Every structure is written in C-alpha cells, then in structure tokens.
C-alpha cells in the first residue's frame, strides 16, 4: 500500500485532479482509496456521481461508539473507495483537529487493513496551516506529497510553503516531496514560472495539465473526465499523470 498526499492552494483543482487520478488508476486495476481532508467534504463528489457521502466526523457525532467502517467508506461505481473526513460548522470548532480525529478513527477501525487499498490519496485542503492539516505528511501516513499549482503567484507561494513544511518534517523521516503538478491557468510563461519554482524547491514538474473546458463539462455531469469523456485528450492527460505518480512511488 502506498499513500499519497495531494496539497495545493485552495481552488487550484486538487480534488478534480485527485479524483481523475483515482479514476485512472482504478481503470488500470488498482484498488484506490481517496480521503478528502477538507471540511467542505466535496473531494469525492465526482467519483460518487454527485452523491454527498456522510463524513467521518458527522458519523462520529451521530453514532458515537457504534460507528463502523461501513458508515465511513463508500465505494464509487468505478471501485474507488471514498471517504470524507469532514469538519466543523463553518466559523466554529477546529478543522485541523477534526482531520486528526478522523484519521485516528479510520485507523482505530482498521480501514486500511480491511479494504487493503493499493493506493491511498489524501486530498488536503489548501495550505499546511496547522498540525491537523500536516497530519497526512506525518509518520505512518503519506509516503509522497505532490503539490498542485498553476503559474499564478499565490498558488506558487502556497506550494513553496507546503514544500517548507515537508522539509521541516524531513528530520523526522516523514513523507517526501514528490513534485509539482502544473494545472494550467494559461498565465503568461506559466511553464517557465513553475519550472523556476520546481528548481527552487529541488523538485520537478511531474505533469502539465492543459486548461480544457471538458473538465468543467464533466464536473457539470458530476463525473470525472475519465468516466464522462474517456476518449478525450484530457482523459489521457490524467492517465499520464496517474502513471507519473505511480512511477515516483
């Protein structure tokens, strides 16, 4: 089992990218689990065809100690195992602590042992803002961290911060920096800018995803591109990205 964390600035396309990688790997026969780590709990929406699955934290609140894995892990029609960590009501509570609690619950219930996924993706909200959102990088969780970025300044700034967090944890032998995924926004000299970022962070661009309206069309259908437009060029881009991710594990 390999565990991968996907980080990046909010709104950069992490969930879309992660869901398409999950779908592409599932298509190739891998058993994939995708864990959304965002209080919005919309990471797995396209995999679940628009169905909003109950979150770990909501189920813990509702069911207390009677909670079972079946309450938390949902299989999408393409076989991807979907989990949403969830989070507190907007404006109150502690989202970071929520991630920790959700992760601990999955472990307590033996989620990895029961489902035995080949690949686990942690799709993590925005930046590594606190201990909770750093959880997927810590010991026992992700082996590799990939960062989704565009050539926009704030996206690259966030990516740089995330790499700093990974390096800080380096002394503890935690997850390694796997590289950048360039989700193009058609910024001028975008590849050049992100290449420079890769160089400065001692990483590389593992894949360049072009900007393509078909992604939005698939999302409008509550599907991944892999499922909605399997023959589209963009679907092949995601398949290639999935291949690159696997090659770097």
């Amino acid at each position, binding site marked *: 089992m390999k565990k991968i964390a996907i980080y990046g600035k909010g709104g950069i396309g992490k969930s879309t990218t992660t869901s398409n990688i999950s779908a592409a790997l599932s298509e190739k026969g891998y058993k994939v689990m995708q864990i959304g780590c965002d209080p919005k709990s919309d990471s797995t929406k396209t995999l679940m065809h628009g169905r909003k699955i109950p979150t770990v934290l909501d189920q813990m609140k509702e069911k207390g100690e009677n909670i079972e894995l079946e309450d938390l892990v949902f299989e999408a029609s393409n076989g991807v195992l979907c989990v949403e960590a969830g989070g507190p009501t907007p404006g109150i509570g*502690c989202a*970071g*602590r929520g991630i*920790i609690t959700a992760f601990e619950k999955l472990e307590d219930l033996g989620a990895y042992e029961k489902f035995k996924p080949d690949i686990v993706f942690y799709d993590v909200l925005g930046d590594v803002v*606190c*201990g*909770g959102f*750093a*959880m997927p990088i*810590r*010991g026992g969780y992700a082996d590799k961290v990939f960062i989704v970025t565009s050539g926009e300044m704030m996206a690259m700034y966030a990516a740089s911060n995330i790499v700093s967090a990974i390096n800080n*944890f380096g*002394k*503890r*032998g*935690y997850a390694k920096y796997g590289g950048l995924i360039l989700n193009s926004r058609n910024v001028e000299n975008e590849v050049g800018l992100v290449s420079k970022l890769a160089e400065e962070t001692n990483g590389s661009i593992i894949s360049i995803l072009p900007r393509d309206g078909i992604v939005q069309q698939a999302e409008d259908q509550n599907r991944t591109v892999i499922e909605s437009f399997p023959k589209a060029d963009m679907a092949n881009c995601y398949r290639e990205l999935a291949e690159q991710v696997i090659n770097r594990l």
Partner: protein
Amino acid sequence: MSQLSRYLPPFSSDYSGICSSLFDLDGMVVIHDAHCCSMNYVNMDEPRWYGNKKPIFSSGLREIDAIMGDDDKLIRKIIKAYHELNPEFIAILGSPVPTIVGADMEGIAQELENELEIPVFGFSSTGLRYYNRGISDTMIKLIKRYAREGSKVDKNVNILGLNALDFSDNSNADDIREVLKSAGWKVSCSFMMGCSIPEIVNSPRAAVNVVVSQSGMDLAEYMEKTWGIPYVAFTPMGLNDNKKIFSMIEEACKEGKSRVIRSDDLYDGEILIIGEQLIANSIREVLASQYGVKGVTVGCLFGKDKRLATDFDIDFKSELQIARKLKENKYSIVIGDPLLKALVDKSQAKLFALPHVAVSSKLYWHQYPTFVGDEMENFIGEVSQTLKNILI
C-alpha cells in the same frame, strides 16, 4: 450533561499511567503541558512520588507555544535537561492542549533521538483516555524497543500490568511476586513495578505471562503472537484461591494455550463490583469458587474488556449510569471505592469499600488492601457472610 459527575472525581488518565509505568526506570519523563497535568500526576496519582526523586518534568507549555507550535523550544529544553541528567532514555508525553493543536509527539521524539542517540519515546497521550491505556501503550513501546528473543527458561514467568494506580505502593507488588515464587516460579520481569530494562530485554524468554490487570492484556496478546508465550489472566487474591492460578500456569505452560480464569455459571445476581475489570474478576472468582457465590456482576469503570468480561458485566461510562443502575435496587452488595458511597447510599445496597488509587487518589491510598493473604480473604469472606445474612 450525562457525563457530568457530582460525586466522583475524574479518574487517572493515560499520561499518569505512562508516568507511573516508567517510575522505576532510569529515564527522564517530560509531560508537554502547562504544569497542570504533571501536577495532577505527582500530587494526586502517584503514591510513590513522596520521598522519591524522579525526573518527571512539565514542558511549561504556554498559550503562545500552543499557537505557534514551537517544537524547537521544547526540543532545546529537553536537550538541555538531558545533558544535566544523562538519563537512560527520554519519554515525552502529550496532554490535552498538544492533542487539540495536533502536536506531533512521535515526531518530536524522533528528532530528539536523532540528536541525542539514546532511546526517546513519544507518547500521543491525550489526557482523555484512562490510565490503563497509558500503561498498556508504555509496556508495548518498551518491549518493542528493548526485548530480545532468546531460548525459553523453564519455570520463568513475567507479570504484566502490575502498576501503582491499581495496586498502590503497599506490599501488593511484592506479595504477588512472592506468591508466584512460593509456587516455584521465578519472575523474569514484573511489568511495570520493580522492573528494569535488562529484565525487559530478557522477558521474551519466560514460559508464561501472568496478567494481573486489564492494562496487561494487550502486551500479553502481543507477546503471545510474537514469541508464542501463553498468558493466564488472574490477579492473585486472598489465601486459598491462588492454588488455582498455579495449576493454570502449569497447564498454560504445558499446552501453550492462554487462559482467563473464570468460573462457569456466573450470573447477574446480588453483588456488583465496580472497578478495574481483572481485579474485580478475581474477587468474583474467589467468591464463586471459595464461597459458592456466583451472582456477581463487574461494573467496569475503565472500559469493558471483552477478553475478560462476561456478557452481563456493565461498561459504566458515566456517574449517571452508575446512579441509575444502583437505583434499580437489583444489587444487595456493592464492592468499590469509598467515593462510591454517596451513590450507593441512594440505593438499598451496602457498600464494601475497596479503595482504588485511580479513583480516589491519595484520599485512601494509605488504607489500601493487600490483595494476597488474610486481609482480602477476610474481606471477601465478610462479603459472602453479609450476603447470606441478607438472603436469609
């Protein structure tokens, strides 16, 4: 509100269990807290604290440290203390605030170990779990780090789960070791009272493990799985019933099969023992086998362990639940900590007081019963006699 306690104090928590387990070893313990948890432990939970000098520190966590997550400050402080004290190992323990902010205790420990090149144990203790979880985690961490497989030594046993929060600091620990020795068994390692790291190293060579509290169960299962050592779960209790444990140990050793000592035909009857599962089980066993009293239920205060409990044993999760159960007036006799008196007095039951450090702390730890010998034999005999009188 159902979790609110009016009469019972908060029970000892996981960090106290860890500290207490490490008390006899030459390590340095640091609780990452704002002095409150460490004060709880040294002032309230550890009967051996007074008159002893043990390097158990608080990190002095402040609001700004919690907000900023300044692990380096903690690491610098620990390194400084290490150079002054030269402990054999270091343990750093979480508490509620680090838990809430997600402090990475294992990661901090790894950094310290890389720097100091001595064993450093990081415990993600939360202060929200009971002491028995802390004791269990400690024993497992120590055995995974230190134990070395070796050829089995005949007639050698380990004792698992011996701790000051269940057994206090009277003669209980010595008595339990002595009663095993008197039957011809040599105690290899007495986890975690009166043990040393060399003893932990050699503990996989024992023929049998004797589990004396529920905190020892996970380690017992780990050692059974890893080194094939069977266990017998029973707290030596009273005078005569210990003979049974000797034959069970012999059988476990011969057959390589673990055993939980428990009579048949037990039922939810007239007596309720509220407390630690395995100690309560053992009192029940003496009542059943010596006095024929089989209607005894255990009300588990620190979690019901399915490996040890009967179906009808109760997992008490709140004071309210205990109060409601007692108000049913089903039980004629309750055995438990003296602090339960206020609750028992609201029912028709009679309380037989049995102090427990993890419940009433220093209030009664000088009146702690000795489990092996006359005192407990007489106590159980009196319970049995009282029940007979009630039933007449």
